């Protein structure tokens, strides 16, 4: 605080040297296991949009939970999050025969999912903490037909995904947009997007809206205390900003004597 000298004095030329060394070898570090990255579809998440959250909850709890669990969430906490009363929640969304305070588990026994997909289906509670909303949105909308896969489909952002295209009836089937690219550093044909192949029961705009709602809902489930954080954060941080100013003034008040007066006053020897 009261230090009037730079702790490094005058490093001058050697700073330049260190910086140029760093730049040179950063350039060299670029050669790595590159894969062609398909562009992600941008999406904005608005946790205030209760209608979207309810729609997302409806689709998630009626389609996704066939195979996926949301073990971190309970029906009761969801109803609070969606702004619905208990009876309203039970009527509109339902608890799949579970108790209202139960956690949300998949309808299908895990053994069947294992036998089908050869891999346990991931829990969706914190999926929005593992992936960005844009990634989730792109994932949900980018299944494409790939006869080489056991499920007949593949995904643009999740190569060789085990999940089948459960959205086919809604979205219709899609074909990939392939480019010559890299996969783990080796040349390969890489899908970077999809084009419609058949029609589903929803228009593309309707389906995008649905997928967006699902992502918003999953984001809300993954960030259960977002509103509390936003409400409390400014107060707590503000408190310490104010305290910083006050303690700075007190510090300066006390230290005025150290900075200005003779040394004699702090001679506190016996």
């Amino acid at each position, binding site marked *: 605080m*009261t230090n009037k000298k730079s702790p490094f004095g005058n490093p001058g030329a050697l700073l330049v040297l260190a910086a140029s060394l760093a730049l040179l070898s950063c350039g060299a570090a670029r050669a790595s296991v590159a894969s062609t990255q398909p562009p992600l579809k941008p999406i904005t998440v608005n946790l205030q949009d209760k209608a979207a959250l309810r729609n997302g909850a409806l689709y998630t709890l009626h389609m996704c939970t066939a195979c996926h669990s949301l073990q971190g969430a309970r029906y009761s906490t969801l109803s609070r999050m969606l702004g619905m009363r208990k009876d309203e929640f039970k009527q509109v969304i339902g608890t799949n025969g579970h108790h209202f305070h139960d956690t949300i588990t998949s309808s299908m026994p895990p053994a069947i999912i294992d036998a089908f997909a050869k891999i346990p289906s991931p829990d969706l*509670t914190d999926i929005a903490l593992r992936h960005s909303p844009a990634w989730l949105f792109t994932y949900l909308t980018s299944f494409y037909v790939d006869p080489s896969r056991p499920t007949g489909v593949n995904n643009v952002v999740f190569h060789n995904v085990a999940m089948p295209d459960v959205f086919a009836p809604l979205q219709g089937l899609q074909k990939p947009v392939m480019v010559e690219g890299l996969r783990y550093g080796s040349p390969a044909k890489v899908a970077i997007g999809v084009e419609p192949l058949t029609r589903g029961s929803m228009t593309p705009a309707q389906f995008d809206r649905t997928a967006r709602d699902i992502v918003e809902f999953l984001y809300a489930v993954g960030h259960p205390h977002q509103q509390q954080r936003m409400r409390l954060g400014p107060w707590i941080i503000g408190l310490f900003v104010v305290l910083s100013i006050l303690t700075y003034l007190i510090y300066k008040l006390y230290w005025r004597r150290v900075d200005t007066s003779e040394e004699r006053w702090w001679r506190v020897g016996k």
Partner: protein
Amino acid sequence: MNSNKRSMAHRVFGWFDDRLPISSLWRSQLTRYPAPKNFNLWYFFGSLAMLVLVMQLATGLFLAIHYQPNPHLAYWSVLRGIQRDSRWGWLIRDMHIVGASAFFLLVYLHMYRAILYGSFKKPRELLWLIGIFIYLALAAEAFLGYLLPWGQMSYWGSAVVTNFVTAVPVIGKPIATWMRGSFVVDLPTLNRFFVFHVFLMPLLLLALVLVHLIALHHVGSNNPDGIEIHDNVNESGWPRDGIPFHPYYTVKDLFGVSIFFVVFFWFVFYNPSGWGFLLDKLNYTPANILHTPADIHPLWFFLPFYAILRGVPNKMYGIMAFAGTFVLFACLPLLDRSPVRSIRYRSVLWKANILMMALSFLWLGYIAHGFATEHNMVYGLHIAEVFYATFLVLPFFNRQRSVRAKVIWLVAAEALVWLIDVWMYSIHAHRWGLMLLTDWIPALYLLLLFGLAIVFPGLARDAQKLPQRLTAGGVFH
């Protein structure tokens, strides 16, 4: 009324004070403890680290109450029980997570402060050594705690580290099994890690910190000028450049604490996973023994060591190089023996070398943050050489060297670096092209350091005259 007019409270306090050295400790350690009057920004980090230690103990207490050390329950006891079901559990956990990283950041800055101002030099060598043990205990504490959420990165990180000992020939594997209590990381491992994390290590840390403080108050604080304040005392024995720790540094530290909490709580409320640096995204997946992640790496504070470990193309030597960094830290008082303590009065090249020490440490972290490609391994090896070199060249600066000595230093250092490289080439550790990309970095660094010392001797010369009194903070008398 009693005769000496002492109030009831005074008499009660007096009763205790006669039997416990309360007021005498208060006086000798706080109000009559002389601290140099010119502490700067770097001197906040020690007290802040102590604050974070207390905070980790307090938040950890509540987390331990709700945590289940069982592989079937651990993950959800953290992510549902603590994070969602218990009231304010999320806040306590996020404080604990951000606190762990804050602890390391503060300790690294605290250690670098000691290097900058020569605080490890006589008579504070033992103080520094105790500090190194605190760092090791802290590292163990962090590693043990990281397994507890039982996420993918927790699990595989622990699997990798407990496999270190298998590098020891013959007895390595039995020791690893004994350490884990199982052939893989499993329930016995989780149980013992939990007990060590919440009981053994905190106890050890507290004890070490106490010894650290006792040693500090015995030898007195160093300061940014590196001049012993006790060498210049007034007629009553009080250092002329010393001020009582309390209230002057307590009010100053309170200001530091407030600023620290502004940053700390910004992370807690708005960015608890710290862009994936404070808590890895992969840890939001429960541990799966059948599914090894594509890329296993530690949290940010261990990344530089991880780069060193990864850089050496042999497990045994890798672990030796990794452990060697701590030996280097511990040997610092033996390496840097110049009578001039503070960076303010050291030579330009010494300053550059100390700057390079920090830069190469960060640089190693940057490398380890990338994938474990062959390129990154070679790159890590060469920057590790630079990091080692920044320690091993320190004796060069202990005194004025003749031109002949400088040339010998240059030749010996270059020979050592190239010998390691020739060895790497000879055992075909990596592809030629990859080696050539980066193996000039340590060689060039040493060439520049000693070359400049030969051509411009002034750059390697410390200040010839040190001030008699502290130069900053307060009126210069």
